[in-house]
Structure formats: C-alpha cells, structure tokens
C-alpha cells in the first residue's frame, strides 16, 4: 500500500511510505501522478484544490488551502492552515 484515503469525501490521501516525484499511484481506480516527494505520513492532493477551499480528511474539515494545490502535490503547512486556535488572527 502506498497511500490511504479515510473517507469518500476526502480530497487528500496519507502516504504510508516515502513516495518519489513521478511515481504514479492508483487510488479508487484514479491514477495520480506525484508532482513532488511525499514523505511517509504526509498528505497528497487527490484532485486540484482551489485557494481557500476546505481540506477534507476523515470526512471532516481539517483546514483550508492557502494556495492553489495541484493534484498529486504535497499538502502540508506550506499550503494549508487551520482555523482553530488562531489567536494570531484574533
């Protein structure tokens, strides 16, 4: 297994091994061409995600995209932010 999707609503998958760019993984019969290295335990986009769009994992909102994210790209703190506990925005 290369990556796991936890809920049908999710727009991200979790890599369960270190994945290299150029690798094509298949999730629910959809081929995803990885655009960059996805370290073990990190997330990748299952489809193109617009800036400001919700990031969904476990079928729940885990944050929003702070930049447009291409399908197959690394999804992490550089392009996603949480909305909770954000006293810096208060």
């Amino acid at each position, binding site marked *: *297994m290369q990556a*796991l999707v*936890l809920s049908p609503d999710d727009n991200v998958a*979790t*890599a*369960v091994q270190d994945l290299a760019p150029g690798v094509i993984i298949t999730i629910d019969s959809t081929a995803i061409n990885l655009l960059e290295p996805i*370290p*073990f*335990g*990190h*997330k990748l986009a299952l489809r193109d995600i617009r800036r400001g769009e919700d*990031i969904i*994992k*476990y079928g*729940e*909102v*885990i*944050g929003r995209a702070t930049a447009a994210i291409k399908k197959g790209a690394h*999804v*992490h*703190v550089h392009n*996603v*932010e*949480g*909305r*909770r*506990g*954000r*006293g*810096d*925005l*208060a």
Partner: protein
Amino acid sequence: VNFRGYRRRDGRAGTRNHVLVFPTVICAASVAEMVSREVPGTVSVSHPHGCGHMGKEKDLVVRAMAGFCGHPNVAGVLLVGLGCELITPELIAAEIVKSGQRFEVVSIQAEGGTTAAVAKGKKLAEKLLEEASAASRGPVDISEIILGTNCGGSDTLSGLTANPALGFAADRLVAAGGTVILSETPELIGAEPVLERRAASETVRRRIREITAATEAIAMKAGVDMRGSEPSPGNIEGGLTTLEEKSLGAVLKGGTSAVRQVVDYAERPAEKGLVVMDSPAHDAVCNTAMIAGGAQVIVFTTGRGTPLGAPTAPVIKVSSNNRIFKSMKENIDINAGDIIEGKETIQSVGEMIFREIIEVASGKKTRAELLGHAEFAIHTLGLNV
C-alpha cells in the same frame, strides 16, 4: 471477564499495590525522595506545587493530590510536609481518610530537620510496606476498570493505526461495562462535531463545547497561533498539518461509544462508559489527572516514540508505525504499525490491546514499568503568587 486485582477498603479495585511517599509541597520533595531511596519497594514523586495556590487552582491541586494518594493502586501513602505550607499532609489526609486509605504523616519542621524527618519517614514507610505485603490479588470484573487513554508524539499514522485500534479496545471495555477516559482538551478542538453526535445528553454536548472554547480562548486572548504547540514541531514533521487534523485522529482512541459525562481535571467520573476529562494535552499532566480521577490502567499511543510512564499506574505503549517500533522497541508494548503493511487489522490490534489491558491489570509489567519510568505533573491555572 475478570482480571486479578486488589480490593480496597472503599470497594474500589487496584491493579497495583504501591506504597507511595508523597510530598504535599516542593519543600518536602527531597526528603520524600530520600525516604523512598532508603525503603526499596516504595515509589515517590517530585513536583513544584503545594504553596501559593489560590481559589480554583488550590481546589484543583488538592483534588489531584488527594485523588492520586487515595487511589486504589496505592496500598498506603506516606505524606511528607514541611510545616508552614498551604497544602499540608493533614489537608490531603482529611480527604483520603474518607475512602479509608491507609496513610502516615511526617513533617520536617516538627521533626527538627531533614535527618530526623528522613529517619521517621523511613520507619513509617517500612511499616506501610509491611502492611501492603499482606494484600493479595483476587478476581475482579473488568467492568471495574477505568481506562485512561492518551496519545503523545503523534504522527499522521497515529490516527490511522494506533488510535483506532485503541478505540476498538475502548469500545470492547465499554461494552463489558467498564469506563474509558478520553482527555487532552486541546486535541478535541476541531473534532467537536464527532463527539457532539455521540453526546448522551444536552449537558454533555454543551460541556464539550465549553471546555474546547475555554482552551481555545487561551490562544485567542494571548494573540498566538496554537500551531507550534498544537500540533507540536514533531507532529508537523510527522505530517500533521493542523490542530483540527490532529484532533480528529486523537479522538479515535476513545472509540465510538456515547459520551456519558464530561468531568473536570482529576475529577472522578460518576458515570461508566466513555467519559471526557478536561485536561491539557501535556502527557504527564494528563496521565496524572486520569489516575487521580481513578484510572488504574493507561494506554498511550505514540508515533514519534515516548518512554513516559506513571509512578502508580501501568502505562501500555502502542506504536503507530513500524519504524518507531524498531528504533524504540524497549519502550513499546504493542505495535499497531503492521496495520499499514496489511499484516494486521485495526480489529486484530484492538483485540491485542484489550487482552493486554486485562493482563497488565492483573500484574504483567509494562515496558515503562520495567524501565523505571514514573513521570508525574499537575496542571495549574496561573492562580499562584
């Protein structure tokens, strides 16, 4: 199903038979440690509290200390004080005597200094140890188990392997009539919808919102981003991106049962089944609270690896991935990493955890116990001068 435990005077059952040497104030911490060192077989703790607490913080610290010292895993406790502190041995004794807990008291000023206090403490601890040795294990229904759950050093696999496997075991225990504590309030932030759907009453639903809002308000008032603390730098390196993501993975360890009650820090649950305790996510602060609230066993999941134990309760460590199981093998009791490899399932590892809880409750030592881990810390509210 039974485990083999120690029946105590108040009717509760313990999974261990410790003699605890407990300083009620930091000024007595070294004397407590010296006594414990002179009486092998006893355990002692150290903490910076016992003086200067006001109002709600004093109540909280007294509740935590009394819950910890009066715990069914403790056969007897030597309370060590200085003499001029706020939280005296007598204050804690007045609480734990209600449940019939066996205790002795020594105060440094009354004895005339360190050497005399240690000498007296040694005699008293030896007496408590001798009495404790007369206790024996007998069959106890597992419905009497209060299981504390914790996760520390999480990675994104924690939410995919170790936490849902622990959740499976938690559901098994609840189905058998037992109690499971889900805690770490910061790690409920963002997962409220999941818990609210399972709230057994409107009060529980409201209390879940109240405790997460109160914790979130700390960051809002300070004008800081909780990220960096929650998730921690290690969590982020492991692939966790936001607090919401961490929380949604963290609450899986409580299983899928209805939430019966929300209790305060170190408060003993009145309900059986799944209970939420309001506590910081700090691992030792949270473990101490769950033990003070009556938990006799803790299961602790980890992705990055942590050795944490507790002075008077067994802490079963479950790793979320094979890498940490290999690199920190001596600290891990059960590995959930094979779920990712497809060699195990959430159910099969969950069943392993459930069986381990019963064996450990019956006396099997955990890795943390064998290695001598005994971390202890109490939460404070900033109400001290």
